[in-house]
């Protein structure tokens, strides 16, 4: 669990790092106040990460609670080589993945029906379509984001998790491979299939100009 590489793309919070240093120095005295501030400053995004993985608010709160407990007990492990947010990120991802593995309602639907089809010559058999123009603003609109959440959540879990960790959490292939105990080659295969399947699920919206 502690063998993660750091993600240089994650956002750092210098005030958070200062808080963490102060908290370590005075852990027996004013730590209650300092730790509370760290919780308040970081709980929203940590809940968001857990929800992306677990798709369940109640389970996400459990994951965040355990993650904060481990963060508190591992304060000495934060050496400032990565941002505080990067360091905390791994705790909440690991707890969420652990809870996901314990779930009996994992979506193990086959992904094959959502993958592109080819004829005996190796040519695409799917009906091609011209993509309507759109703007970055439109992709970030609430309407599109709601569509994306629904369609991402519809992917089989073993593919959805890889897509969430790589494309939304912006973890590297090696970080995802370590977290999921997969080979890097397997992560890449699953990521490509997840993107291709998601594209298929989004096609009606893209053809209609909604995306």
């Amino acid at each position, binding site marked *: 669990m502690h063998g993660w590489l750091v993600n240089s793309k994650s956002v750092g919070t210098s005030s958070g790092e200062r808080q963490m240093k102060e908290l370590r120095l005075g852990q027996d005295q004013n730590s209650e106040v300092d730790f509370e501030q760290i919780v308040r400053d970081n709980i929203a995004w940590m809940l968001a990460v857990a929800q992306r993985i677990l798709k369940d608010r109640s389970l996400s709160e459990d994951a965040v609670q355990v993650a904060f407990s481990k963060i508190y007990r591992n304060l000495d492990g934060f050496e400032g080589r990565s941002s505080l947010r990067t360091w905390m990120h791994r705790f909440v991802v690991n707890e969420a993945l652990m809870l996901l593995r314990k779930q009996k309602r994992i979506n193990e639907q086959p992904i094959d029906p959502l993958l592109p089809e080819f004829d005996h*010559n190796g040519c*695409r058999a799917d009906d091609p379509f011209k993509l309507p123009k759109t703007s970055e603003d439109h*992709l970030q609109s609430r309407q599109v984001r709601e569509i994306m959440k629904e369609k991402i959540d519809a992917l089989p879990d073993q593919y959805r998790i890889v897509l969430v960790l790589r494309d939304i959490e912006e973890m590297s292939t090696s970080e995802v491979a370590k977290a999921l105990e997969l080979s890097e080659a397997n992560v890449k295969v699953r990521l490509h299939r997840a993107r291709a399947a998601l594209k298929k699920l989004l096609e009606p919206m893209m053809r209609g100009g909604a995306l």
Partner: protein
Amino acid sequence: MKRTAQTLKRRMHGVMFKFPGMITCNEFEDFILAYLEDELPPTRKRVFELHLRVCKSCRLYLAAYKRTLAATKASRKDYDELEASVPEDLIAAILAAKES
């Protein structure tokens, strides 16, 4: 009629993609991830881009694939709007349980 034209076009492509230095759409599919991450060796990248130039289906497919990826990355913002909905009792529970 449209279906017949598409079938004929696919047959012609099927023959063309067997030429030296060419790949099929199926093989093109296998290289997409590495191409977008700039991990293809130069020779394979040239072959990939040659296929992209001659195959409209794969050009359209790749454009939709990229749109999907951009929309996925943009969806991250959705979850950053949770800040207003963090319950106080969760914070209290975290603080109470931090050393358990």
